């Protein structure tokens, strides 16, 4: 205990040893090399903490691990002091102070190590600017997709509003006009005719409402159940379903799903899409030749693509290109065509994030391309 007491009492007293210049044999070169090097190190170790301090101040708000930074400042300052002492000993041999400085430096060093180990896992987790850039890019892409979906939905909504005005205004105004005629008419025979027409128009309106309801139903479903489906398993029963029609028209329906036989999709939708494409192709056959309808799948850039090709009447793309998938749009004087099927098909495909397009030539045939 006495030794410790004496140590602190004589901390700054340099009488017990000779100055280092006189202890052993120092050449001028060796001594000054030693002294100047130590002083240079001390100066550097004094400036580094200032730089760190400046950095700390500038990045005050968002800098993690502040404690470690402070410990580093202390640690480097302490190291610097030991070098200063080392140089000082040449003139002023305060070996006790030197030992104390070494001891403090040792303590601070280990405190720094402990603190460093503690934050290391978190520090490793910090993303580098390059990594952050990648993450930002990914997020931007996600947002872009989302924004595209939203504007798609907006367009769909606008279309839907147009459809409702178009397809509901006409029959409704007819109903009103018929009532008006009925009220003003005295002839019983004519009145009966108006009532009959009124009924027809009501039925027609109901049909339109049902069609629109189908569309709303599709757009309302957010989480459509997907399952692994085989194209052949879906198409085969559909061909059987319309076999009477196929035989009547002497049609030939073929398919080749070898390039891509299955898909993760909604069963109800795939059923409906394939059925609509099939019946559409059958309906618009050319009277000059037996219908040949061919379904084919392939994979392109990670997406499943289905084509349905026929040798039917074809569509004049220059005239009707943008109207093919509209509700209640028909292109041939065909009593079977109601103009609902392809509109529904498009709505379903788009609801699942895909798209449908058509290539066609009058009197040669059409090719519908579905990108799932």
């Amino acid at each position, binding site marked *: 205990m006495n030794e410790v007491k004496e140590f602190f009492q004589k901390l700054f007293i340099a009488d017990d040893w000779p100055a280092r210049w006189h202890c052993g044999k120092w050449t001028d070169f060796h001594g000054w090399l030693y002294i100047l090097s130590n002083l240079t190190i001390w100066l550097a170790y004094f400036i580094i903490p200032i730089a760190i301090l400046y950095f700390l101040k500038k990045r005050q708000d968002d800098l993690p691990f502040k404690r470690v930074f402070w410990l580093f400042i202390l640690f480097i300052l302490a190291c610097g002091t030991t070098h200063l002492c080392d140089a000082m000993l040449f003139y002023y041999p305060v070996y006790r102070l030197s030992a104390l400085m070494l001891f403090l430096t040792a303590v601070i060093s280990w405190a720094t190590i402990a603190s460093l180990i503690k934050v290391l896992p978190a520090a490793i987790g910090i993303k580098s600017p390059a990594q952050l850039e990648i993450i930002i890019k990914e997020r931007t892409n996600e947002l872009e997709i989302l924004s595209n979906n939203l504007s798609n939905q907006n367009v769909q909504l606008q279309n839907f509003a147009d459809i409702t005005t178009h397809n509901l205004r006409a*029959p409704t*105004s007819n109903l009103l006009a018929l009532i008006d005629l009925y009220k003003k008419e005295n002839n019983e025979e004519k009145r009966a005719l108006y009532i009959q027409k009124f009924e027809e128009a009501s039925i027609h309106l109901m049909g339109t409402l049902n069609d629109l309801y189908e569309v709303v139903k599709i757009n309302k479903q957010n989480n459509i159940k997907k399952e692994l489906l085989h194209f052949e398993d879906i198409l085969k029963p559909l061909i059987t379903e319309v076999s009477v029609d196929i035989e009547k028209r002497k049609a030939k329906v073929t398919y080749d799903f070898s390039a891509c036989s299955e898909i993760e999709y909604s069963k109800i939708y795939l059923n409906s899409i394939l059925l609509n494409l099939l019946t559409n192709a059958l309906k618009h056959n050319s009277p000059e030749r037996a219908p040949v309808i061919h379904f084919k799948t392939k994979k392109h850039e990670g997406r499943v693509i289905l084509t349905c090709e026929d040798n039917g009447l074809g569509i004049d793309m220059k005239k009707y290109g943008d109207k093919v998938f509209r509700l209640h749009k028909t292109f041939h004087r065909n009593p079977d065509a109601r*103009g609902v099927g392809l509109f529904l098909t498009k709505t379903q495909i788009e609801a699942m994030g895909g798209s449908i397009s058509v290539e066609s030539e009058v009197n040669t045939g059409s090719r519908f391309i579905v990108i799932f």
Partner: protein
Amino acid sequence: MLIIDDNQVTCMILTEILEKFQVHVTCFNEAESALEYLQKESGNMDLLPEIILLDINLPAMDGWDFLNEFITLHTQLVKKITVYMISSSISEHDMNKAQEYSVVKGYLVKPIAEEEIRKIVL
């Protein structure tokens, strides 16, 4: 008068109203058959109409397609015909588009009031 509208009830209603004004009406549900008729009767003063009421939304050829054909056809007709668009569409786009055709005299939005028809025929 000639009416081109795919909705048979609309055709009937308009016919009923027009007959009250002693106007003879011929209805077509498709633009194609109307064009065929005009071509066939291009020299016949009696059978050519003075006025065509034309719906926009039609199967196959729509009202605009009809107009595009009609503007070349009507110079060969012995009678001057004016066209009125009749549509349930209240879209400005359609209305503006109709104005671009010099043969189109007006745009009537369904339901069409008797009063409006009276103005056209009298």
